[in-house]
């Protein structure tokens, strides 16, 4: 196996309801995988399994050919739609947190020169997500878009092997969302990330991803719809490498989105 992440025969069942059946998936390093599908098709379940938050009923997951322990760890970063930043910490403290946890197992705090070094790293990371000027704000003082930028910076400072995004831009308004698309693509390229993103927005899935996976049920039993689970019904490779062309597509997207908004208003 050469893939970074491999899922082998994953089944997820809640009671007698089957959510995912026999999902096989290989994710190459450096790819940007978009996962779409109707509500209840198990998109988020799949993400939670890769994250280690849930244990699949059957099947196994390998990261770099080593089986994954069913627990969240620093090798897989995550950005949720909401609540993924700590409300009691400032932007800088939120970002430094990940470094402090590794460096100081007992106090989970850094002092002196170690702290200054960690803060320097954090500020660099915050600059690259565009929060360089807001390091002393608390999450409650920031807009939804800024909070998501912070959540991304927080995750990336740990240099995760895989970054998991669970509808990260779903709660943002269209203009901000376009900015965030540009940001995540830039970070993906600059830090050579591997990203798996669950989204509701089909256009977002096509614009950002290098590969698109659609989850849905292959078969439906009308008498017991819960007995068949979803699996990958489409697995489409998209443009393999995103060059500067991407910015143009996104700009075009923004213009189009703005036009539709103006048209509606």
């Amino acid at each position: 196996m050469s893939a970074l992440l491999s899922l082998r025969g994953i089944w997820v069942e809640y009671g007698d309801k089957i959510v995912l059946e026999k999902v096989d998936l290989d994710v190459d390093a450096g790819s940007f995988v978009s996962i779409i599908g109707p509500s209840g098709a198990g998109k988020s379940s799949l993400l939670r399994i890769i994250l280690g938050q849930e244990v699949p009923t059957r099947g196994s997951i390998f990261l770099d050919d080593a089986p994954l322990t069913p627990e969240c760890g620093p090798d897989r970063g995550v950005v949720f739609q909401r609540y993924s930043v700590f409300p009691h910490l400032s932007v800088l403290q939120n970002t430094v947190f990940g470094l402090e946890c590794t460096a100081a197992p007992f106090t989970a705090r850094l002092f002196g020169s170690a702290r200054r070094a960690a803060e320097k790293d954090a500020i660099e990371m915050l600059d690259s997500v565009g929060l360089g000027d807001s390091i002393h704000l608390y999450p409650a003082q920031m807009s939804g878009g800024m909070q998501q930028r912070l959540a991304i910076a927080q995750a990336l400072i740990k240099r995760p092997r895989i970054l998991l995004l669970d509808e990260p831009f779903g709660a943002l308004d269209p203009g901000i969302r376009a900015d965030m698309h540009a940001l995540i693509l830039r970070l993906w390229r600059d830090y050579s990330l591997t990203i798996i993103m669950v989204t509701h927005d089909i256009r977002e899935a096509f614009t950002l991803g290098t590969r698109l996976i659609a989850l849905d049920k292959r078969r439906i039993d009308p008498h017991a719809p819960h007995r068949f689970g979803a699996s990958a019904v489409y697995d489409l490779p998209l443009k393999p490498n995103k060059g500067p062309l991407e910015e143009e597509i996104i700009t075009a997207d923004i213009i189009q989105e703005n036009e539709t908004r103006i048209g509606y208003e």
Partner: protein
Amino acid sequence: MRWVNRQVRRSDRILLGSLPILMLLLLYMFFAAQRHALNPADKILPLPAGMASGMSALLFQPDQLTGQLTFWADTLASLQRLGLGLGISTLTALIVGLVLGVLPPVRATLGPLVTGIAVIPPIALLPILFIALGLGETAKVALIVIGITPVMVRDIAAHVADLPREQIVKAQTLGASSWQIMIRVALPQAMPRLLHAVRLALGPAWVFLISAEAIASDIGLGYRIFLVRRYLSMDVIIPYVAWIAGLAIMMDIALAFLSQRLFPWAHGARH
């Protein structure tokens, strides 16, 4: 304009809020004056002058037996018991609540016990406390602790357990261990709630303090009230009750202020 939309300005709020209090005071004065017109020696509704003379002995003259200023000695004794009780309860609530809220195995083990203790009426335990701990200070402090701790523990545990799952998962993806999640994620977010729980527990804590003092004590605000009741000394009881109310309000305001100052992030977006 609908009444639900009528906002009251700050200056008007103070005015409106003091109105019923003033009315009540006026009403009291009216009835007291009426009673005193009929019987100048009336003890049931003393006039302010009567209260002042009744209290002045307790406030300014040392007691002949102990040599202490009774009112201040009472206050000190009561506040000491209350402070000890609240302190022990708060610390216990924080530690136990945090562990219960963060660690599911501990919650499964100790949750039912805490719930069980919480449903026992604390006053029913008072005889046990007196038998086991004697009639001294320990029993009184223990009653306050037993009375308010379980509720506070459950409140903190529920609050910590209700922290968004996303936060706990996120912390783990940032490399945090159970211990680190406890001290860096759960503890700081439990603190404002803890101060809130202390504010709510102040009322019951006073109830248990006064009860314990009324039953077996030789000093304290509650002891004095129940002692002078035998002589119908309303001129002492009413100022004492007012003083207790004043102390309770001051503590409440101080805790609210402390929470605003220490945890601005928990009080809205204006920091």
